[in-house]
């Protein structure tokens, strides 16, 4: 068991900030929590908005709000907007610059603070693991371990962490006040971090004043998917966004908790695509070629990233945006996704000229934004436009079978 230590030095600041932050709603319905106007009012529905984000300039990011409270408190709380909804990772991560209340620090068996180094594709986040009661819509995850990014308490990033590349530790690099990871995984590291030795990938550090060293971290103490900790509606999420034609400045939709647990979250006619357990991927067939277990759906990716210019025939854009495709006209395409359970269906998508799509500074939702991703299909947020996409958590039972799966 880890003990929880309260820093307890910020009560003056707390008293000041509480006046400007919303209180917790306890277990009652919290409505839309300031996330936007598109969602319903059911207790398992939170509004999401595709806009330019709290830092400005974000394209194809779905943002929402969460309320975090000191565990057990209904008054020592803060509602934070501008949180990116990410089905490609598990767990809540908040920028310290956006967090005005003081949450208890998780400590290891020796009493030292636990700090996490979490690798993403383009770098890593570094920051302490703290504990919060998280409320979103009418759902609550009690005593949820979260990561606070970019605190001043642990300024020295260990070499074994900085060797992952670039720290994403502020609004400019993250583009959001935080990340709400509601993907198929429960814990972010999993069993690999629970054992010591060479097989430990080194995501969790024990940080006494003498310096940080890699430590083990139990599954229960890892930063984890808050949905799995809800009392109900805890087997997955649905993201509902309307169709987007070309480029728009704002789009609103809903983040719905639970699959088949309420009258508003049934699978309906959606097809279930089970995932390869070792990679968390499924299969995409495109232009007659099958890319086995090399495809995934990820609301945290801001485009459709697939194959390369040589394979697709679409030129990449001129520098500095060579990571996007720039066909001379919009391409109407189709592909087939296939689950490990044998289900498959074709669907249509478009690839547009990214230079044109992103030329208007007010654009935040851009259907057709796409780029190269050699040998792989990353079906990012544009895939969600006009589809209700279900993400079922690993090991959780649903009317469509046991997760992990995607359905749409």
């Amino acid at each position, binding site marked *: 068991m880890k003990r929880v230590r309260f820093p307890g030095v910020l009560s003056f600041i707390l008293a000041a900030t509480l006046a400007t932050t919303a209180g917790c709603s306890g277990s009652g319905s919290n409505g839309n929590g300031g996330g936007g106007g598109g969602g319903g009012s059911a207790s398992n529905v939170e509004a999401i908005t595709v806009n330019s984000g709290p830092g400005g300039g974000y394209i194809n990011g779905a943002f929402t709000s969460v309320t975090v409270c000191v565990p057990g408190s209904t008054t020592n709380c803060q509602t934070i907007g501008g949180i990116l909804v990410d089905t490609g990772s598990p767990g809540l991560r908040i920028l310290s610059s956006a967090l005005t209340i003081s949450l208890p620090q998780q400590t290891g068996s020796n009493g030292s603070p636990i700090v996490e180094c979490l690798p993403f594709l383009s770098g890593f986040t570094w920051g302490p693991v703290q504990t919060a009661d998280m409320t979103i819509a009418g759902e609550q995850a009690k005593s949820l371990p979260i990561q606070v990014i970019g605190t001043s308490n642990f300024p020295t990033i260990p070499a074994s962490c900085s060797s992952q590349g670039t720290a994403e530790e502020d609004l400019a690099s993250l583009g959001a006040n935080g990340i709400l990871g509601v993907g198929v995984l429960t814990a972010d590291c999993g069993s690999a971090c629970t054992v010591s030795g*060479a097989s430990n990938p080194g995501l969790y550090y024990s940080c006494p004043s003498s310096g940080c060293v890699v430590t083990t971290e139990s599954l229960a103490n890892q930063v984890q998917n808050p949905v799995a900790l809800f009392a109900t509606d805890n087997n997955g999420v649905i993201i509902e966004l309307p169709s987007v034609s070309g480029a728009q400045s704002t789009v609103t939709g809903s983040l719905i908790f639970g699959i088949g647990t309420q009258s508003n979250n049934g699978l309906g006619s959606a097809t279930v695509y089970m995932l390869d357990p070792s990679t968390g991927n499924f299969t995409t067939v495109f232009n007659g070629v099958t890319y086995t277990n090399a495809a995934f759906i990820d609301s945290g990716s801001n485009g459709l990233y697939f194959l390369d210019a040589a394979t697709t025939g679409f030129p990449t854009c001129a520098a500095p945006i060579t990571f996007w495709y720039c066909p001379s006209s919009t391409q109407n395409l189709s592909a087939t996704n296939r689950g490990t359970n044998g289900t498959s269906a074709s669907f249509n998508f478009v690839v547009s000229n990214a230079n044109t799509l992103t030329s208007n500074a007010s654009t935040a939702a851009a259907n057709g934004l796409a780029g190269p991703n050699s040998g792989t299909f990353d079906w990012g947020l544009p895939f969600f436009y006009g589809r209700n996409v279900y993400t079922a958590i690993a090991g959780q039972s649903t009317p469509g079978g046991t997760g992990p799966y995607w359905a749409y």
Partner: protein
Amino acid sequence: MNSTIMRGLFAILALPFPVSASLGGDVSSVQADQMKMQGSLRTTSADSYKVHEIQTPAGVAVKEYVSPAGKVFAVTWQGPFPPDLRQLLGPYFDQYVQAVQAQQAQRHGHGPLLIQEPGLVVQITGHMRSFRGSAYVPQMLPAGVHPEDLR
């Protein structure tokens, strides 16, 4: 042969060479990488290069591609976690980090990584618990070797 003797031998072999060089380094740097990653090593040959595959205890498969001239011209990796990129990219690591930071402002969001500089190409894709990446130096590719061969 026990592991202590093995490690001693690798240390002796690696001593005269740069210990942290991988991409762009001599073939000896493969052994330095193997030691750092505490992995097992397997070597296979293709027409115009050799592939040294390191399997780390954390489940990451790292491949280092060595040219006939004995230079590591490409590295690839796949597994539930990324490898130590500073070790693997060696002298190219700083260039990589600067290129990522320069690109962040242009992307307007998150997605797979694609760095294409005149002297360095890096691609990283995947999601939590499933990473795949490659890095190569275009000028060092042996004649007839194409980037898509590096998987």
